[in-house]
């Protein structure tokens, strides 16, 4: 039955599985088809896009080509001339013809329909090959746009489509464009445009390219429609709606809609460069998906085959499952029958008695063993009540138990009765069984009388033994052959906190795996060998005897172990031994020499000597005396003296028990000792001593060294300070006090962080305490060397420059320093010298630059006049030569005179240049001399009364100024430090300059004032003259530089001012507004 169920459920499962698989395969097929469809759609859209692009490019090329044609014709310069001619000849046909003749060949070859020239106001000049009507407004628009324009596609009155492009014809006169007219080209779209669209159409395909434009609420097809046979520019569709052309006009590009036939199409649109034109390339949806049809057939076929294959597979599997289950059923039946036979055999010949009872406890059947045991014959006992075979007591208990009706049956022990009245003890199991629908009880009885008796005896023995065992003072235990603990008793168990039965039943090999002496002894005993060993267990020590125990035949049954607790005994022994070892080790290994003495007394009990009865090895090595030579000898003999050394002190200690120690020099050995004495009980004492001779020597040396270093520390030129981890000064030498300008008391405890140091770097920036070399050294543990820094010297009130070396002091066994010492050298003087050299250097560089400039200028300015002198001299020489040649053969005095006058004129001009050049050179050389003198003049700066100085300068200009009539206002001026003579020159030059460049048209006004800011004084000389443009403001200070050559001057005035102010540690600069005036600012050191 169960197997059938399995079969049915599995066939159900198969059907469900089959359905699932079919649905899965179908879904996969559909997904595949959809994916392919997407692929094809995307693919076709890409194709359409590419085609669209192709046509766009073609159209663009055509447009540019036409533009070029137009440009080429319109920019032909001869054309312009001819147009002018035709126009001016009031359209003379001959001239018209000439104009057209030039271009007719070109027009023909380029397949333009017509060409025409028009005046800017639209009147015809000439047309070819016949009259051309320009598209409305095209001429005017072209003129106003001044560039090439195109009309839209339109239908001419006769219905043919047309397109016109126009270009202005321009002539430039004096860069101004003059419009001569407009050139119009008429294009036949059927030749030039539509073929471009058709170039992608194929008979076999529904692909079609269209151009369209929007007109109000509708879209107009500008090209012929392939499938409707409608001429171009006639078909319209509404702007709203699904028609792809309308969608394109609405600005969409990738399209899916219907075409003018209402047929579903895919399309791609683009906007063309001609305003308002759209290009639509479309393809029928049918064609797009036609390739898909084959795929869908194939997919369907594959899906169907897969479903069939899945069905067949599942059916086959289900069938196999069913066959296997039938085979299993058959096998089970065979097994069961064999079992029944086996059981019957067992029952009949079993050692145990087996009795079968019916529902009324009547004996129905029994085996051989039962017949023999109960002593009845087979006939007698059948149908007897089972109760007759049981004792009363057993019967009662059996009834009680049977009343419970446990299906598992009952087990009882009790007495049974034989036929002869004997009773035997039996163990009975009874359980209900069903045989062919009837209920029976089967009783199995075993005779256990013998066993009971033996058990009784044993129990008695065991009780006796247990008393013995449990009172055993140690631990007694018994293991069997397998090492299983059978007994574990003894008073000691409780002491160590183990319950007597805790280990029973466990394997001793497992429990004592950690104590190999136990397990190995057990194994030895099991092999018949007695042994005894000591174990420690949970802090207790046991001495255990392992004895094999045997049965009567002598074979080993197990091991008896008897353990005694010997913990305390061992502890005491151990303590004693360890103390002794320690003391002995100490005695032998201590650094101090030890000797044990016994005091010797004279007759009256006064100590007079002592002997040594033991010494340690150190004693021998310190004193260099062998142990054997001194033992039990009096001290006088040992040390070779008359009176025993330190007898009084030693015997005192021995007598009073008070320890005593002292340092001493022992002349016989020439050694210092530190000796301590301890009593060892009356009359005995120990001396413990060390040789301190070395230490004494080192102390002396150390003192001497310290003295030497102190002298060095006190006297060296370098400053030395010791600082702790925080940078606080612990110690400093006199040199440090001198360099830092502080007494030791003032600097003690001052840290590197202290702001009073005002520590700076060589560049003058502040050095924070953390960056102080000592702090870096203490932080990093690395010495810092050669750090230059400035420290404020409070007495001198300026910074002293020092080079600092900071060295960390790292104590033995430590990694980081606790202190540093910093030593430093005062380098202020050398640093100042260095700064001076730097200043001088930069001055030298400046001077060099100036010198270079002078050399450069000189090379030009001095050469210039030389060119003239040489040139005009030679010219004159040539003139003379020419004259001489001319005169030599000339007889006519008139002519000679004329030549002479000419020559004199030439010569006079040449001499003029030569004299001017020598004067110029003289002036230049004088100027250079002036400059060079300025460099050598001795300067004596002192306080200058500026009001007085300026007044005297103005006074000397009085005469010049009378002519100019300028007003000079002088504010009260602060004084400064300068050389009066030189400063006079500066103010003369500047003031002279100011007067020279006043504007004649307005009254001159010059203002002089000055400001003293405590460091320097700045004077300002402001004029209202012509001013200096920004680009010349730097030039005017240059050597020989003159901005206005018409004014007198040598180009030196301001150069000299600059030089003088350089020497006076001042400077000069200017600010100026061209046309409004100039201010010179002269800065000089304050007093």
């Amino acid at each position, binding site marked *: 039955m169960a197997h059938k169920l399995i079969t049915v459920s599995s066939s159900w499962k198969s059907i469900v599985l089959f359905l699932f698989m079919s649905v899965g395969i179908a879904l996969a097929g559909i997904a595949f088809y959809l994916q392919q469809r997407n692929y094809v759609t995307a693919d076709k859209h890409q194709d359409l896009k590419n085609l669209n692009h192709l046509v766009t490019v073609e159209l663009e090329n055509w447009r540019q080509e036409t533009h070029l044609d137009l440009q080429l014709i319109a920019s032909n310069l001869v054309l312009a001339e001819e147009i002018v001619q035709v126009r001016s000849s009031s359209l003379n046909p001959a001239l018209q013809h000439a104009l057209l003749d030039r271009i007719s060949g070109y027009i023909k070859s380029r397949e333009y329909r017509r060409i025409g020239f028009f005046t800017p106001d639209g009147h015809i000049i000439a047309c070819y090959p016949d009259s051309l009507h320009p598209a409305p407004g095209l001429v005017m628009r072209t003129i106003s746009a001044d560039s090439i324009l195109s009309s839209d596609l339109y239908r001419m009155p006769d219905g043919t489509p047309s397109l016109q492009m126009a270009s202005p014809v321009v002539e430039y006169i004096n860069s101004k464009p003059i419009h001569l007219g407009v050139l119009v080209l008429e294009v036949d779209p059927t030749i030039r445009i539509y073929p471009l669209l058709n170039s992608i159409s194929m008979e076999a395909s529904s692909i079609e390219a269209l151009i369209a434009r929007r007109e109000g609420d509708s879209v107009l097809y500008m090209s012929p429609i392939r499938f409707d046979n409608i001429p171009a520019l006639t078909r319209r569709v509404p702007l709203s709606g699904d028609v792809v052309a309308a969608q394109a006009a609405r600005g969409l590009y990738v399209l899916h809609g219907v075409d003018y036939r209402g047929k579903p199409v895919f399309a791609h649109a683009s906007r063309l460069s001609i305003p308002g034109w759209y290009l639509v390339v479309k393809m029928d949806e049918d064609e797009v998906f036609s390739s898909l049809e084959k795929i869908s057939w194939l997919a369907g076929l594959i899906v169907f085959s897969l479903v069939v294959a899945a069905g067949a597979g599942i059916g086959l599997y289900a069938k196999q499952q069913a066959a296997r289950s039938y085979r299993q059923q058959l096998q089970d039946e065979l097994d069961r029958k064999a079992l029944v036979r086996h059981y019957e055999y067992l029952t009949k010949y079993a050692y145990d008695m087996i009795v079968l009872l019916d529902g009324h406890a009547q004996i129905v059947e029994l085996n051989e063993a039962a017949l023999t045991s109960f002593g009845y014959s087979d006939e007698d006992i059948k149908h007897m009540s089972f109760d007759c075979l049981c004792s009363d007591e057993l019967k009662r208990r059996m009834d009680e138990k049977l009343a419970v009706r446990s299906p598992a049956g009952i087990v009882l022990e009790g007495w049974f009765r034989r036929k002869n009245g004997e009773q035997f003890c039996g163990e009975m199991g009874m359980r209900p069984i069903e045989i062919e629908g009837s209920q029976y009880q089967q009783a199995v009885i075993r005779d256990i009388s013998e066993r009971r008796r033996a058990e009784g005896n044993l129990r008695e023995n065991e009780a006796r033994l247990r008393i013995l065992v449990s009172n055993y003072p140690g631990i007694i235990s018994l293991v069997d052959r397998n090492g299983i603990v059978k007994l574990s008793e003894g008073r000691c168990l409780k002491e160590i906190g183990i319950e007597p039965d805790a280990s029973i039943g466990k394997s001793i090999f497992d429990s004592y795996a950690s104590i190999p002496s136990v397990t190995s002894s057990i194994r030895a005993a099991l092999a018949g060998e007695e042994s005894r060993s000591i174990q420690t267990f949970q802090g207790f020590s046991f001495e255990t005897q392992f004895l094999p125990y045997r049965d009567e035949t002598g074979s080993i049954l197990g091991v008896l172990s008897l353990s005694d607790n010997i913990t305390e005994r061992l502890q005491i022994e151990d303590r004693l031994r360890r103390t002794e070892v320690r003391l002995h080790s100490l005695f032998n290994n201590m650094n101090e020499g030890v000797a044990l003495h016994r005091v010797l007394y004279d007759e009256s009990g006064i100590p007079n000597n002592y002997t040594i009865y033991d010494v340690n090895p150190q004693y021998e090595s310190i004193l260099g005396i062998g142990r054997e030579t001194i033992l039990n000898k009096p001290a006088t003999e040992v040390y070779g003296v008359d009176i025993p050394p330190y007898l009084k002190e030693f015997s005192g200690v021995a007598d009073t028990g008070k320890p005593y120690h002292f340092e001493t020099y022992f002349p016989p050995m020439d050694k210092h000792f530190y000796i301590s004495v301890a009593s060892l009980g009356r009359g005995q004492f120990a001396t413990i001593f060390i040789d301190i001779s070395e230490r004494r020597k080192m102390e002396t040396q150390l003192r001497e060294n310290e003295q030497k270093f102190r002298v060095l520390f006190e006297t060296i030129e370098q400053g030395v300070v010791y600082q702790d981890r925080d940078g606080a000064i612990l110690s400093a030498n006199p040199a440090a006090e001198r360099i830092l300008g502080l007494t030791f008391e003032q600097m003690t405890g001052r840290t590197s962080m202290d702001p009073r140091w005002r520590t700076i770097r060589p560049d003058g920036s502040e050095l924070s305490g953390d960056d102080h070399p000592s702090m870096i050294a203490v932080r990093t543990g690395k010495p810092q060397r050669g750090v230059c820094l400035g420290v404020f010297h409070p007495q001198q009130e300026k910074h002293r420059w020092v080079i600092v070396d900071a060295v960390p002091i790292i104590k033995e066994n430590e990694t980081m320093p606790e202190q540093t010492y910093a030593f430093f050298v005062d380098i202020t003087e050398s640093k100042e010298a260095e700064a001076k050299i730097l200043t001088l250097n930069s001055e030298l560089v400046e001077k060099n630059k100036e010198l270079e400039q002078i050399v450069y200028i000189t*090379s030009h300015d001095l050469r*210039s006049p030389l060119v003239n002198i040489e040139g005009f001299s030679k010219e004159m020489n040539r003139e003379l030569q020419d004259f001489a040649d001319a005169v030599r053969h000339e007889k006519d005095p008139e002519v000679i005179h004329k030549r002479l006058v000419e020559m004199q004129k030439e010569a006079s001009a040449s001499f003029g240049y030569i004299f001017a050049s020598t004067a110029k050179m003289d002036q230049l050389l004088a100027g250079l001399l002036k400059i060079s003198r300025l460099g050598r003049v001795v300067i004596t700066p002192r306080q200058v009364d500026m009001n007085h100085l300026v007044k005297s300068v103005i006074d000397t200009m009085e005469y010049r100024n009378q002519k100019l009539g300028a007003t000079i206002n002088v504010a009260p001026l602060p004084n400064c430090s300068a050389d009066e003579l030189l400063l006079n020159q500066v103010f003369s030059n500047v003031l002279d300059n100011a007067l020279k460049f006043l504007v004649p048209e307005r009254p001159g006004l010059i203002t002089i004032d000055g400001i003293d800011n405590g460091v320097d004084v700045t004077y300002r000389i402001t004029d209202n003259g012509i001013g200096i443009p920004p680009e010349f403001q730097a030039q005017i200070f240059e050597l020989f530089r003159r901005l206005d050559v018409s004014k007198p001057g040598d180009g030196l005035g301001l150069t000299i001012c600059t030089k003088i102010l350089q020497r006076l540690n001042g400077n000069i600069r200017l600010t100026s507004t061209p046309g409004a005036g100039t201010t010179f600012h002269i800065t000089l050191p304050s007093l």
Partner: protein
Amino acid sequence: MNNEVVILITDDDEGHSLLIEKNLRRAGLVNTMLRFADGEDVLNFLLRTGPAPHRDSHVAYLLLLDIRMPRVDGVEVLRQIKADHDLKKMPVIMITTTDDPREIENCHDLGCNSYIAKPIDYDRFVETIAKLGLFLMVVQVPMVNGDNFQ
């Protein structure tokens, strides 16, 4: 060189200008030559700023330019010419007393077409200018404002 090219001589030293012109004539040049006393004058002429005279649009020019001049020096003139859209094609020949190599390099960097040092020795001066004359006779000069070469 086309006879219509006008040669502009710019030198603050009137004697120098005269000597240059004299020797160019002697070398056979019959072109119009205009002399300017400093950079500002020649810039006014070329850029058509300030007072007249100004250059003509349909005339080709060639500029001989001294460097060291008051107010606007030759280097500045050269810089402004080369920065001007119309003038930058005009040939500029530096002609100066200085033979400082830095100055020469500076002028070449700014785009001068040639650089001639005026020798003090007059025979060499004459020779140099004669060579310049020969050079000017064969050189092609573009119109300053147009694209056509003559």
